[in-house]
């Protein structure tokens, strides 16, 4: 991509492009309709969250990091809370842990259903998109009535959770899950049966087990290729040891398999939520958390909807974290897009891209950027390649 090819025709996708309502800039060099190379540039929404966390106290950083991602916000706040609690030698009460887990799985349902819609939209299957998002509202409503917010639930606090699972919430969750499961069975049937849709998903962006392993793919993307990587099983956190889940894998490794894996995972999630609710431990919701956290480093990992989420947290014994490193699953998976799209049709690129369920805001987080004038992106292929080779 850095080589200076004079005659190449680059299709920029993003940051302002309907395929990617997300702030990233991909450049796909095409030959006719065929993609010959790909590169990526992030950073359009750099918010400086890692640096920002260093300037806040432990509790404030929780809410900052919750905003790394709008979709898996609870995953981010949970992984941070778990890490900090481990560092401080505090353990959230069992009931809080179970509630965190229920929320995580509810969030996974909402995230995967969102993805089904987005991927269907990329394939031009608007009807599936509308339906799956309509039914996703069920779980959004559950989350809203549970925590009081649809997106950034802020259910976690250091040392526990804020909201209890009362009978009213239990009812709405159980009712919602029943109807959702029915719908999910239907969607599973559609994505595995509908010929026009299969034509856009089967054999697309295929990754073999070896490739997925070598590229370090994680989450459903890896599991669709047959790599059994799931932190909920590999390294159980919260109550996953007591309420285990089964890893869903597929062998095909194409987009079709990712649909199947993601939807089947949701049945697992629903089952897991039901089990956790049945055996919900009694007790406190939260314990007191110290203002200062003793010095040390901790690696905290959980399985977010998109794959393993990695946090490295370092404390020097003060009121603020010294370093919070966030490695989001999407960043780990992007290489599979860049590698997977080469040699494919341009029309398939949005599909391959959406296949990993990319979350761009998650990636963009590392520094506060204050730009007073954003330079207009030059869409001249020759100029672009020149500036690339210069930098």
């Amino acid at each position, binding site marked *: 991509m*850095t080589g200076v090819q004079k005659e190449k025709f680059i299709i920029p996708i993003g940051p302002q492009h309907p395929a990617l309502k997300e702030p990233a800039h991909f450049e796909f060099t095409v030959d006719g309709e065929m993609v010959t190379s790909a590169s990526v540039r992030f950073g359009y929404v750099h918010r400086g969250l890692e640096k920002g966390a260093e300037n806040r106290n432990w509790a404030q950083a929780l809410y900052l990091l919750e905003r790394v991602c709008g979709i898996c916000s609870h995953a981010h706040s949970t992984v941070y809370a778990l890490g900090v609690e481990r560092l401080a030698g505090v353990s959230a009460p069992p009931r809080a842990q179970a509630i965190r887990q229920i929320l995580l799985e509810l969030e996974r349902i909402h995230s995967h259903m969102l993805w089904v819609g987005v991927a269907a939209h990329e394939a031009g299957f608007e009807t599936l998109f509308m339906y799956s998002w309509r039914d996703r509202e069920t779980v959004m409503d559950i989350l809203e009535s549970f925590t009081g917010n649809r997106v950034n639930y802020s259910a976690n606090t250091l040392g526990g959770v804020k909201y209890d699972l009362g009978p009213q919430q239990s009812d709405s969750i159980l009712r919602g899950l029943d109807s959702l499961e029915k719908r999910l069975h239907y969607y599973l049937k559609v994505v595995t049966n509908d010929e026009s849709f299969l034509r856009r998903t089967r054999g697309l962006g295929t990754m073999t087990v070896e490739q997925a392993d070598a590229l*370090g793919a994680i989450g459903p993307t890896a599991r669709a290729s047959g790599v059994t990587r799931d*932190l909920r099983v590999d390294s159980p956190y919260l109550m996953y040891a007591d309420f285990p889940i089964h890893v869903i894998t597929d062998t095909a490794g194409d987009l079709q398999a990712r649909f199947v894996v993601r939807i089947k995972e949701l049945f697992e999630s629903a089952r897991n939520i039901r089990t956790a609710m049945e055996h919900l431990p009694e007790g406190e919701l939260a314990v007191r958390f110290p203002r200062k956290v003793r010095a040390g480093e901790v*690696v905290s990992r959980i399985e977010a909807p998109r794959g393993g989420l990695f946090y*490295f947290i370092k404390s020097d014994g003060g009121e603020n974290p010294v370093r919070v*490193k966030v490695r989001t699953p999407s960043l780990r998976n992007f290489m599979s897009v860049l590698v997977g799209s080469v040699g494919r049709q341009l029309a398939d690129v949005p599909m391959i891209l959406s296949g990993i369920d990319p979350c761009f805001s998650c*990636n*963009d987080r590392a520094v506060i950027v204050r730009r007073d004038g954003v330079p207009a992106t030059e869409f001249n292929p020759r100029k672009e390649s020149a500036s690339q080779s210069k930098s």
Partner: protein
Amino acid sequence: MNTEELLAQAVQLVGDRASAQSVPEPNRIDLAVEPGRLLECVQPLVEAHWGYLSAVTGLDHGPQDGHLEVLYHFCQKAAVLTLRVMLPREAPAVPSVCGLIPSATLFERELMEMFGITCEGTPDTRRLFLSDDWPAGVYPLRKDYIVPTQTKAPEEKGSQP
């Protein structure tokens, strides 16, 4: 294989190329590695398919301490093996691991722009996250970079050149 065995296997793979070893948590082992021997340590892990490179963390120990540190986290199941490379703050450089792990390029691009650590031999040195007009030589995640907290009101922004 359980976590202890996995970690023992990893330590054995790296062998005496690491200069020091510590166990910060039951499922983690940190190995201190000289910058020059990093690739030697990574190679056996990659060849044995021990886990995957989960993240590359940059750490700044502050101007007084005078050190930067690069942490290569390899994860296999619950086990986390971290190769810690201590670098001087002046002209810090590590060899690129992209030759062994091609997908590390995004991590290294981030490391270079955020900490100013040179990854020698990395295929792509363009910025990944920082904006194009970010001043060269300013590395935001270093401790001596102070965040400009005062943000301007939106209407003032437009008048800027």
